[in-house]
């Protein structure tokens, strides 16, 4: 009996010892896993958007004790040069969110983590994210980034100026003809007030603001294979003529720097949903939004903007932390809160139909136009030569707004310049 007791005791003690040692071992192993890792997240979200991002990040950091994500914000124009330098010198951050227009170039860098593989397959990683948004992240069959936000262009109008000009502030223009009439009425108020503010500074700003007019009139931008321009057509010319006439015939708009609408010096402009929050807080006038007016017999169309989030190849721990953050940030509940804080548009139906979003839209009527219009948003060509194409296009159009060249000549010049730019990369 005693013997049995003794052997039982020794077995038990061995078991205890084994448990303790195993426990310690797993504790050590666990310690290895949660070895604190700090990663940088480069982005260009400043102001209210930057604050919203910081708040979400600190929440993530609290929930994930081993990981510290640090947001690093650059001005929009600086982020790309910084990333180029970082890629060239091998000092990339673990995470970045960039403009969708840059994605074709980022994809070619060979430095992005395959998120499909890291998140258990492309289908699992993307869920019901809108397919048009996914085009920017897919490269050679791999998913290299995920949509972090999306948005579109709608019409903003100054209700105070509408009233002053004798227009109904609750009836924004629905067609180009109505928009033209409203612009003329508002510019007749004098004192340098513009009826409509048009973006005419060369660069992607001009291109992305003008593309909706092209699409609405039935013209295209590039062909389906992105190998040739399609804007130099009768429809394309009518789109450009409409804006050029607003400036040079109706004198209802001025070719110049952007910013008159913000100061209450212009009746209308087209812009993105991210402006809603800022105008609600700071605009020195009452504003409204509407879907973009379309020409007689035209089709609904707007431009799609947004950012993609990506992880860069690096140390295993940093890479794992970055992927974990991306999974969390692109999840529906977080995206819904992100959209509420920033007024960006939902990236999927799950986000769009969440109670958080539905409640927010009910409380901010200016967002309705953007939500209604998102389904008409068209993506810009996701090709590496797009920045060169857009630049060439905008530079050829700019002189037309100043009345230096005719509409037909400007579009013919743009056609030649874009063909050349398509071959450049």
């Amino acid at each position: 009996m005693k013997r049995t007791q003794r052997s039982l005791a020794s077995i038990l003690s061995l078991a205890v010892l084994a448990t303790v040692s195993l426990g310690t071992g797993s504790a050590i192993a666990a310690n290895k896993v949660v070895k604190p890792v700090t990663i940088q997240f480069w982005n260009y979200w400043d102001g209210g958007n930057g604050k919203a991002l910081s708040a979400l990040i600190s929440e993530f950091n609290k929930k994930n004790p081993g990981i510290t994500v640090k947001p690093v914000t650059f001005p929009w124009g600086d982020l790309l040069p910084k990333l180029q330098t970082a890629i060239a010198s091998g000092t990339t951050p673990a995470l970045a969110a960039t403009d969708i227009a840059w994605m074709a170039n980022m994809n070619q860098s060979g430095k992005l983590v395959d998120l499909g593989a890291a998140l258990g397959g492309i289908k699992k990683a993307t869920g019901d994210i809108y397919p048009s948004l996914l085009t920017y992240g897919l490269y050679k069959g791999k998913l290299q980034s995920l949509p972090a936000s999306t948005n579109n262009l709608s019409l903003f109008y100054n209700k105070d100026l509408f009233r002053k000009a004798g227009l109904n502030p609750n009836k924004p223009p629905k067609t180009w003809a109505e928009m033209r009439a409203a612009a003329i009425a508002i510019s007749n108020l004098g004192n340098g007030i513009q009826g409509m503010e048009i973006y005419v500074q060369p660069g992607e700003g001009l291109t992305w603001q003008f593309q909706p007019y092209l699409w609405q009139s039935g013209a295209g931008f590039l062909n389906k294979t992105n190998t040739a321009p399609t804007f130099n057509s009768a429809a394309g010319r009518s789109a450009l003529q409409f804006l050029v006439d607003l400036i040079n015939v109706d004198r209802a708009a001025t070719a110049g720097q952007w910013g008159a609408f913000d100061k209450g010096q212009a009746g209308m402009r087209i812009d993105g949903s991210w402006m809603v929050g800022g105008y609600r807080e700071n605009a020195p006038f009452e504003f409204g939004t509407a879907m973009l007016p379309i020409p007689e017999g035209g089709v609904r169309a707007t431009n799609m903007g947004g950012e993609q989030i990506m992880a860069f190849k690096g140390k295993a721990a940093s890479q794992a932390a970055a992927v974990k953050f991306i999974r969390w940030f692109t999840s529906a509940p977080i995206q819904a809160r992100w959209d509420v804080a920033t007024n960006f548009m939902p990236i999927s139906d799950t986000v769009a139909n969440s109670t958080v979003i539905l409640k927010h839209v009910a409380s901010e009527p200016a967002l309705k136009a953007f939500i209604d219009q998102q389904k008409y948003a068209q993506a810009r060509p996701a090709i590496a030569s797009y920045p060169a194409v857009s630049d060439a296009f905008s530079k050829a159009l700019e002189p037309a707004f100043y009345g230096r060249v005719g509409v037909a000549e400007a579009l013919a010049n743009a056609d030649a310049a874009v063909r050349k730019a398509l071959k450049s990369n």
Partner: protein
Amino acid sequence: MQTRQTRTAYLLIAPALLLFIGFTAYPFIWSAQISFTSWDGLNAVKKFVGFQNYIQLFQDAEFRQSISVTTIYTVSVTLISTILGFAIALMLQRRKRSSAIYRTIFFSPVVTAPVAAAVVWQLLFDPYVGIIDIGLRALHLPAPNWLSDTRWALPAVIIVGIWKRLGFAVIVYAAGMSSLPVSCFEAADLDGVSGWQKIRYMTIPLMRPVTTLVLITGFIDAIQVFDHIFLLTSGGPIGSTNVMSLFLYNQGFRLFRLGYASAIGWTLFTVILGLTVLQWQIRRRGES
């Protein structure tokens, strides 16, 4: 003993030398290498294209426009700021008591952050709320839309360039004038030489080395202008303020053409080097 001294000397210059190699010499040579490729700054492959970037550059209408804009900007800013700087330094010399305050005022733009200065100038040039146009309208003069008008954008950025440069010219001229031999001027006074004659035949010739310095540094400074033009007009409208450095920036960092941008950089460098050598030659000939 000598080896020890030499070693110490090398040790002392090592930090500066390493920084120079790392941040100036290496990127300098590297950019030359890049200028012969079609690299976009992101792609893992740097495709060699020979002299294609340089050939394309000289056929590029935008490049030719940027050369003429840069030339007008550089010549205007350098000459006007030098002449004004000389005149103001002369005036300050006569008001010895208050000159320190004036010198501080004139020098403050030189040390003002370019971004802050550009934001202020943007407000000043604003067609709606800008004090310049408000003033012009009050005087019943035409008030141009400075930064949006192809005729006025370049003069506007030239005005800002002169404003930024003037202080340096004033300080250097003021320092130069204070070291002029007082006895010569007193002798001239006794001989009844007029004020204008003293400036024409004494101050200007005696100030020639200072003028050379102000002109050369002003020229190098102006030809590389970037910040306030980038912030005020971004090179527009219709390229009317598109200076070479802005053209380079746009090609490299907005259009992903780092190879082409490097070729622009090397061309700009060659132009600056050539013109500086020419200026020195002219100066030397003048001295001899």
